[in-house]
């Protein structure tokens, strides 16, 4: 040990004595102290890991179930062309066939003009006299 070291050690020793005199009293065990935390056993760690894994698996399963595609409805409408509105029958007014066909003169059936849609564009032939 050099003279420099001895001098520094002495100076620090003086400082230590002064600071030790001012040191607060050791108050002992604080009131809030609990028992020391013991390190967890491997079995407890294993159980915790298993719980965590089970929770993760359950979460994943729930997620899969919620994203599963829903089944198709039983009577689906195949296309828009085939769809008929339920109020369609209201358009079927009485005698609506008269409005859609060209009437033929003299052709009466049951007091009504017979529809001639099957004879459309055909020439009216005169009956051949015997």
């Amino acid at each position: 040990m050099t003279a420099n070291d001895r001098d520094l050690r002495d100076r620090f020793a003086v400082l230590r004595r002064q600071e030790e005199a001012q040191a607060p009293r050791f108050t002992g065990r604080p009131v809030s102290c609990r028992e020391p935390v013991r390190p967890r056993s491997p079995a407890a760690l294993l159980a915790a890991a298993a719980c965590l894994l089970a929770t993760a698996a359950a979460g994943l399963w729930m997620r899969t179930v919620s994203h599963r595609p829903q089944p198709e409805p039983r009577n689906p409408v195949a296309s828009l062309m085939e769809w008929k509105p339920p109020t369609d029958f209201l358009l079927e007014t009485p005698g609506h066939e008269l409005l859609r066909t060209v009437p033929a003169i003299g052709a009466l059936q049951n007091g009504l003009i017979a529809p001639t849609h099957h004879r459309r564009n055909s020439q009216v032939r005169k009956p051949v006299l015997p």
Partner: protein
Amino acid sequence: MKQTDLQGELERMHTASFGWALLCCNHHREEAEEVLQTTYLKVLEGKAMFGGESSLRTWLFSVIRRTAAEQRRRRWLRVQIFDQWQACLPVPSHAPDPEHMASASENSRALLQALTVLSARQREVLHLVFYQDLTIGEAAQVLNLNLGTARTHFDRGKRHLRKILDSSGVQP
């Protein structure tokens, strides 16, 4: 180690721990007391556990040092956050506590003043070796340094401190 044994050891090392806490807190007495109390809580509650790799003393000193650093960081953060609203909150400084300086003798004042000029590592190594009578190896353990690095800080710190003390003109 049993709780009662641990408490007895803490009591035995209390004054030395206080000296080390003072250095870690730049000789601010209140901060040092708070750091020491927090450290005791950590130790007694088992949050800091002694593994037996080193001596109990070097381990305790490293816990005190870490706790002081945590507290300093927290304090700095608090100042940064509440700076706008609480302008009167004291900013942590590296200068020793004026109250502490006033209570020290002239020699000790000069020493404390000189220590502030050194780097933190040099200051810590010199304190642990000269004040706490630890070896350089033990000081390296406390500071989590290599032995060679601690030795370098010790030699440079000694030379630097000698120069400052000589220039201050205070005789031992």
